[in-house]
């Protein structure tokens, strides 16, 4: 496939490490060490995805991102040492497709790159799928008719119970379900005292199948003290 990825960071070692990881995955990597360089290289039509750090000399990552967005429509993953929610929200609202905090796990980063690329290439299909009555939420696509969940276009193998939970959550993105309700609707039984544990076990398993980092899930989230919900993402 040899898709070309632009990696931008003012720390050459980090760029190097990312490049090695990605090249082992089979990608071609372009390197830039500040925002200005990134702007130049981003114009290369071969570049299919950009990984860009926020705090850089000359031109910071978010400003570079805005400029790139004027010219090209391609997935951008922002790398940052800032881990606050506000920083993430700021990055995503500036047009980033994903936000990864430093220090990151190289494997997870590679998975996110893969996911973004797949989504980018599948984008046309996604619109078509949405028209066909499929439920689309970020990386996830759910076909209620066939009860089939796809993450980045790949079918996720789920057990019957997991499918029921996914069915419930995908049909109601953003809505918070208490464990008792999930239990009642999925197991068709009265909520037992230990249902919290049961539901949590299943949710953890689903997360492992669909989340890029199951420990910091992007999709199925716990709303502490209230219940569980499917986070709503844009397409």
């Amino acid at each position: 496939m040899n898709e070309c990825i632009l990696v931008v960071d003012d720390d050459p070692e980090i760029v190097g490490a990312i490049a090695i990881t990605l090249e082992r995955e089979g990608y071609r990597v372009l390197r830039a060490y500040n925002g200005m360089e990134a702007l130049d290289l981003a114009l290369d039509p071969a570049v299919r995805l950009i990984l860009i750090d926020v705090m850089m000399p000359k031109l910071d990552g978010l400003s570079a991102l805005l400029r790139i967005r004027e010219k090209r429509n391609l997935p951008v993953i922002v790398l940052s040492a800032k881990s606050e929610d506000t920083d993430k929200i700021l990055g995503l609202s500036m047009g980033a497709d994903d936000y990864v905090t430093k220090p990151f796990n190289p494997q997870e980063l590679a998975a996110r790159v893969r996911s973004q690329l797949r989504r980018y290439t599948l984008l046309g299909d996604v619109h078509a799928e949405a028209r066909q009555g499929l439920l689309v939420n970020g990386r996830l696509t759910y076909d209620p008719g066939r009860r089939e969940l796809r993450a980045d276009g790949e079918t996720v193998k789920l057990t019957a119970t997991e499918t029921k939970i996914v069915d419930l959550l995908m049909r109601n993105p953003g809505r918070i379900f208490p464990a008792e309700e999930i239990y009642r609707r999925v197991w068709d039984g009265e909520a037992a005292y230990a249902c919290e544990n049961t539901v949590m076990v299943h949710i953890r398993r689903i997360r492992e199948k669909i989340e890029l980092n199951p420990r910091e899930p992007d999709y199925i989230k716990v709303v502490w003290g209230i219940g569980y919900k499917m986070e709503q993402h844009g397409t």
Partner: protein
Amino acid sequence: MDTKWNSTGPDEGLEQFVAGEVREALKGAEDAPGVVKLRVPGKTAGKLRAAAGLLALVLGVSLVLGSLGQTAGRLAGGADSSSFGPGWWSTDWQETPSFRREMAQRLQAFLSMATGSDLDWWGTASGDTYILSGDGDTWYTWGSMDTATEDITAEDGAAPDADYAADQNLLYQVIGPENELLYSNVPAGAEITSGRELPEGYNFHLVFRHGEVQIRKDGEPVDVYGDGFYTEDALWDVPGYENFTAGEDVAGVTVYMAVRQEPVPYVQLSTDGGARFYNGLYDTYQYIREMQGFYVLRAVLCVLGIACLAVARLLRTDRRRAEARLAALTRRVPGEVWWLAAILALLTMVFSMDPYTGCSPFELWYYGWMDSSLTDVLRLLALLPANTAALLVLVWVLWLRHITRKNTEPDQRWSLLRALSVRARKYPFQRRLSRWNRLALVLICLPAAFWLLVLTRILGISAYDALFWFTFLPLLLSAVVLCWILRKNAALARDIGLLADQVTAIRDGDLETPLDLPADADLRQTAEQLNDIQAGLHRALAEQTRSERMKVELISNVSHDLKTPLTSVLSYAELLRQEPLEGAAADYARIIDEKAHRLAVMVQDVFEVSKAASGQLPVQPERLDFAKLLRQTLADLEGPISKSGLTFRVDLPEAPVMITADGRRLYRVFQNLIDNALKYALEGSRVYLTLKVADGRAEASLRNTSREELPDGVDLTARFVRGDASRTDGGSGLGLSIASSFTEACGGAFRVETLADLFTAVVSFPLSEEA
């Protein structure tokens, strides 16, 4: 003097008496043992008893004080002083001292008329012996009061007995020494010389003959002289005793007197169209009846009052409740009203005319009608309660004030003065001060003006008088000085006000505008000192703000600077592990990787704790179920928990325990606490997680038995402090610190207790109100 007795008293007394009697009967029925009581529910019965107790108290005190006060007033008034003596309360008026005195006075009057001279009973006394005899002066009639001092000879030569003749309640015949009939009012055909056969309706017969008196009542002779010696206690003030004899001139006179058993009023129409009443005896009769009735009724009322008081005492516990209820109403009455009412009542008592002397006690004192001897002072004081209405008002006003104070706290009561001062406090300081100044001016100038007025108008001192200027000039001087002081005060008030305003402004955060007082102001120095304080505060605040900002920036920068190399370390450690490494090198790579991961966790923890400590941690509070959060946390950490070999004993309420907190932060709190327990608890021991609701707070506690000995006196929540001294285990030393600072950032309270090896962490939140 004795014309007023019917005007007050008995009627209202009777009303009270009847009311008292009715209450008495009602209460008697309720309280008497053996009487079948009405079955009323306990609460109603209690209320009834309380009301009855209160009523009994009011009636009892009113009756006792009213009757005693009126009695004391009448006794002190002195109108009855000569009416007391043997038989004063007798139902037969002819047995009373007043009657006896009247008879003696009539006899004396007739003897005076007969001898043509003024007979002074005591005028001819010598030693212990008294002789009744004329002294040859002009004589006066005796008897009815309105003519007592009138010289009868001046009345167009009318007969001296003209006033007596018409009063047929007393028939008389006066016969001179020569056996000539001098005066008589006996109607034709009637005969009163014999005591045994008197005209119809007459039963009292008195004969004065040969200087002795013989009395027959209902035909029976009366013992007039007793043992024959006249003393001050003698019943009859008439001559005939061994030591009280009639003189030569008197002894020759014979007087017959007959008195009606029941006197009736006689009216004579006079030639000038008016009516004259000759009712001396009838008045006496009426007076005796009234006086007896008065004292007897007061005694009865007093006894009734005492009975009421006894009932009130019996019901005192219930009564106190009624008093408390009453106090709940009366506490709304401003405290000053009680004093005002009491003073008014007292003034009324002092200045109102009492019915027995016809004067107010003040007048009696002021005009010197009573001197300052102890007896007179006591009499004067005894006259005060004669005004029963005022006395009762005084007593009840004081009582109401007493129960109000007894049953309420000072801040529940109402006081006009306090309300005014509270209102005044709303005004700025300088306005209050200038108000006081104005008030002082008025309070000083008004009396001064009044004094000038008195000087010129009333004392008649004119401006040409030296005395006027002697008085006026110092007054003028004082006024000038006063104005000067007040002006100075006004300036001071303005400055103090400015100073107070400045303090308020500084309190409200204005640290930049200094206070500029005139250089000659008394408070100039104080103002400058205040300005110094303000400037110092401003500097300190700026310093603190800058250092706070720097701290936050420092935290962010340090965190960023740490994370950048850490990212490289982690990435290359990962890459290194993917390389084919020989023997020990593989281990080294694994160790580097693990420690780098731990370092990453620590950096993040330090970052968050620092932010929380400087109050910069963003929180998103929402209403959540504390119990559910704990269940979710346990479920989330189920893997590590089941691997730890520890047993978790969990006691969480099924019902939601709603609190307001940031769920994700609170999750971190318990994640850290449970991690802490997993790390430091004794292997195989039990960990207890409980959530209790009490006093409007939800309190979650996690208890575990520590593996290591817990150090004494160390704040485990302090950053980088751990239960064991070694730092070889996996903790960052920040777990409890994070738990503590996150809990507090969410609005909860966090504390750690250690008892021997038992470690307890307690997280508590106020329960959230229904949204």
